[in-house]
């Protein structure tokens, strides 16, 4: 950075070369930097350094609004605080009740699917991050947050708030990270319409309250009010997180595609805090593991190519032949009258839930059905849920 002091006091055409020469030099440098950054993604290291250098400036940029918020909070009246406290308490109680119910439902679901590890939620760990800077122009919708590599943040990490999806990290510095919002025109998120299961892609419209669904045919079953959730494709976001609600559907007889707009559920323009989420890689709902660079979804993701093995097969050395037998034998028992539960090596009674998922007998129920097999049929259903140990 001290470079532009060196020419001081010398004639204009001095040692630094003529302005034309120096400009050519810097222009060539800029072009090389652009090429490396755009095509090859070589400059992660440089990005990292520059992000670190820029962070103090960003803090300075943010300081007026921080000071304003601090002032407002410290001058809030006692009544308002009390009212807010009561409100929060009621909300917390409500959530606790609901999460009690959720635990029960999740366990039930796990039992139904016969998956030992369906019960722990797909999100492994959360970290709250404060928004340091926000850019909401029609060209760029980005956030800067105050967590970075020292907190374990990585590139293409999912960012949520308490209502829905916000975006993903694009550049990570040591103490800060840049988040591209789902409403950025350069961002696309694979979604599923919750009501119908129809999968499509939601593209940012350059406006904090709008997403566009440009790839739906005119006769697609979608209507205003439909909830969009992540579909789990794309390798960044796990399946089933709420994204947006459809606000308007235009069907034009001339156009082959419907024009659909949706409003993100996350309060992107008013949030002051977001959540960074780490997902369990071995969870069935988790995004497929990525080789590192997804970033802006322009280039294809290598990890999403067809894979020779299903991601979470990894059965213990012996079981596959043994596991198939009880699973296939168990399927008919639940379908109709239990013919002979004892005949199937006591595996089915030990694990009745395994039998009620007959649709995919060779893939998912295999590990759970194989592990309880050596045990006698002493333990009834709810046991496997709280102890999610891997078969290995």
């Amino acid at each position, binding site marked *: 950075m001290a470079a532009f002091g060196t020419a001081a*006091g010398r004639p204009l055409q001095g040692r630094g070369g003529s*302005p034309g020469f120096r400009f050519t030099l*810097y222009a060539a440098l800029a072009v090389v930097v652009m090429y490396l*950054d755009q095509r090859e993604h070589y400059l992660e290291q440089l990005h990292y350094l520059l992000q670190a250098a*820029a962070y103090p400036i960003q803090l300075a940029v943010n300081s007026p609004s921080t000071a304003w918020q601090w002032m407002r909070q410290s001058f809030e009246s006692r009544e308002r605080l009390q009212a807010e406290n009561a409100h929060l308490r009621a909300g917390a109680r409500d959530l606790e009740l609901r999460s009690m119910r959720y635990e029960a439902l999740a366990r039930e679901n796990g039992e139904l699917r016969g998956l030992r590890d369906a019960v722990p939620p797909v999100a492994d760990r959360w970290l709250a991050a404060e928004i340091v800077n926000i850019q909401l122009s*029609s060209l760029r919708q980005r956030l800067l947050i105050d967590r970075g590599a020292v907190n374990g943040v990585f590139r293409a990490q999912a960012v949520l708030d308490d209502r829905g999806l916000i975006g993903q990290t694009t550049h990570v510095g040591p103490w800060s990270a840049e988040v591209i919002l789902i409403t950025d025109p350069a961002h696309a998120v694979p979604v599923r319409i919750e009501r119908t299961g129809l999968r499509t892609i939601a593209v940012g419209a350059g406006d904090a309250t709008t997403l566009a669904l440009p790839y739906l045919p005119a006769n697609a079953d979608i209507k205003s009010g439909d909830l969009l959730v992540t579909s789990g494709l794309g390798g960044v976001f796990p399946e089933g997180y709420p994204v947006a609600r459809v606000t308007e559907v235009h069907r034009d007889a001339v156009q082959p595609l419907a024009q659909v707009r949706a409003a993100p559920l996350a309060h992107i323009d008013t949030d002051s805090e977001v959540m960074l989420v780490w997902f369990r890689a071995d969870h069935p709902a988790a995004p497929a593991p990525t080789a590192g660079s997804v970033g802006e979804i322009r280039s294809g993701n290598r990890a999403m190519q067809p894979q020779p093995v299903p991601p979470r097969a990894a059965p213990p050395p012996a079981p596959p032949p043994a596991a198939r037998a009880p699973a296939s034998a168990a399927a008919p028992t639940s379908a109709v009258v239990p013919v002979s539960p004892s005949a199937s090596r006591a595996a089915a009674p030990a694990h009745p839930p395994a039998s009620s998922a007959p649709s995919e007998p060779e893939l998912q129920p295999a590990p759970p059905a194989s592990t309880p097999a050596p045990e006698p049929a002493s333990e009834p259903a709810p046991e496997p849920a709280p102890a999610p140990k891997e078969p290995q």
Partner: protein
Amino acid sequence: MNPYGRGRMLLTVLVALVLTVLPLPPWLDVLRPAFLVLAVLHWSVNAPRTGGIALGFFAGLLLDVFQGPVLGQRALALALVSYIGVREHQRIRSKPAFQQAIIVFAALAVYEFVVFAIDGWSGHPVTSPLRWVHTVTGALIWPPLAAILGQGSAGHA
């Protein structure tokens, strides 16, 4: 130019950078002049040896970290603007403020065009005419801005 002047230059460029990335409501954001370009242009015209192309390049690179789709975009555009400023500094300096504003408008248009072209090449095309609005507001704000920046250092360099 003395070291005192160099510190002043860096400080003003830093302030301009902060003003450029300060979050603003969208309608104001469209009107916001490109303060960093104006500051760099001012220093390349009025202190072509101290400031100049290197200043433009590094200021642009820093701006790219804040808001570029690709690193080097604004570095190139700002280096070009400051090259124009350095090359024509005597001609620009001798003009009255009104004519200077017209030249600044042209320089801002060049800057925005380079940014626009690289946006397109790098796959982020935005063809909204709103992106050109700041060239007008930048030209309008130039006379007072130049007066503020030039305070105390008139006739230098």
